[in-house]
């Protein structure tokens, strides 16, 4: 379904990705964990070319691409197959909720307006925002904006949706509703690749968890393997650190 082989990416002299490889099968939910600066977000952004990787190979469905020689046409092809949900939502600020969802359907998928509207209404109903169709992003809460973001990604019917820390910018009480929605996305059988710090999400939903550090994949496996039978020392340290901050939070 999606495969990245040996991806390299530098920002100037800073080497962010040093040959990471990952694989996502169809209908799988794969979660990437890792400390900040481990390259997980960069990896995700390289998949739909929001960043341009320096080296490596990308396969999405039946499209195979070499990062070094990628062509503009190939980038568009990949972007049509890949949905993206941003950490800070990135809704089109000049468009209402329904227009946000419709716009790609009309401009990219070339659907007639009425059909696009119907699909957008369905997608927004599915994320429980039927009463907010004509609201601008600035009139919606963070959680609502993120739900529109997810509806926008789903409506395009991509082969896979990438989630880049979708709950990191949200108020704690809104994280739950977004995670719940993502679980529903997973239940629909949509292939998902998720960067998150929400261990509970990884534990409950993921088919596979990947731990990244220093621009490479350190360890991967089922949630049970990774959380309960951790092999690598670096993974153990990271999990211990996250769990300890979690307990502090609950104590407070």
């Amino acid at each position, binding site marked *: 379904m999606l495969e990245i082989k040996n991806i390299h990416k530098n920002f100037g002299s800073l080497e962010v990705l040093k040959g990471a490889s990952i694989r996502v099968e169809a209908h799988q939910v794969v979660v990437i964990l890792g400390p900040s600066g481990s390259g997980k977000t960069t990896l995700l952004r390289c998949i739909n070319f*929001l960043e341009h990787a320096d080296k490596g190979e990308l396969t999405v469905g039946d499209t195979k691409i070499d990062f070094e020689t990628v062509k503009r046409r190939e980038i568009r092809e990949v*972007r049509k197959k890949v949905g993206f949900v941003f950490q800070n939502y990135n809704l089109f600020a000049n468009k209402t909720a329904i227009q946000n969802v419709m716009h790609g359907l009309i401009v990219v998928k070339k659907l007639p307006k009425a059909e696009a509207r119907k699909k957008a209404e369905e997608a927004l109903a599915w994320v429980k925002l039927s009463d907010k169709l004509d609201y*601008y992003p600035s009139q919606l809460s963070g959680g609502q904006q993120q739900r529109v973001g997810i509806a926008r990604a789903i409506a395009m019917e991509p082969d896979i949706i990438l989630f880049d820390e979708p709950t990191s910018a949200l108020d704690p009480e809104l994280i739950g509703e977004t995670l719940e929605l993502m679980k529903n996305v997973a239940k629909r059988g949509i292939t998902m690749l998720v960067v998150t710090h929400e261990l509970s999400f990884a534990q409950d939903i993921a088919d596979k968890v990947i731990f990244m550090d220093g621009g490479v994949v350190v360890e991967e496996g089922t949630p049970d393997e990774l959380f309960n039978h951790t092999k690598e020392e670096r993974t153990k340290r990271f999990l211990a650190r996250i769990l300890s901050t979690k307990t502090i939070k609950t104590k407070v």
Partner: protein
Amino acid sequence: MKAQYFFLCLEAAIRKIPQNLIMCFSTLAICLALGMVIALIRTYRIPVLAPLLDILMAVTKAFPANLILLICIMAYTYTFNDIVTFLHLNITIRDVNLIYIAIVGLIIVSLPGISEVLRGGLLAIPKGQFEAGYSVGMTAFQTFRDIILPQMFRVIIPVLTNSILTLMKSTALVNVMGVSDILRGSIEAATDAYCYLEAYVAAALVFWVLGFMIEKIGRMLEARFNKGIRQIS
């Protein structure tokens, strides 16, 4: 000040309003199109062109507006015969309406300012808005047209209104080129009676009304573009 002369000049000035409007808004349209291209080239640092335009804009900004207009008209009269011969045209310098030269001059005067305004607008749009467009599969052009440009205009309307006002005032300078406009029309009406004060005040009044209208339209557009977007945030 004699009322009779004042109204005589005022009438002559009003007759010339279309002339100034044509100069102002055709200059504006061309400046917006060219200025957008320049702003994009400079923002995305297109090799060779970007540094070249940086220098060109910085130099042009430093010239007084009437000096630019004078240079334009002189360069035009000096080279007219060569241009006509080169293009094999059978016309004399009197056949060409000088308003075109005035518009070229006004474009040179206004372009640096307007392209700067557009660049400011472009920089004000978060990078995430582009990425959002790309993420649903839109091309750079589609994203720019549908997402970035409308948001840019919302941002720049207050400053752009000011630029249009300045441009409108610059159109009064074209009389140094011998092009007729509100001010010149008013002055011409004054020559017989030698009532220059009346003529200047009449022209000032006309410019004030035009300026007031531009300001009003700007405010209206601002309100329209902001509808919904700023209600809560």
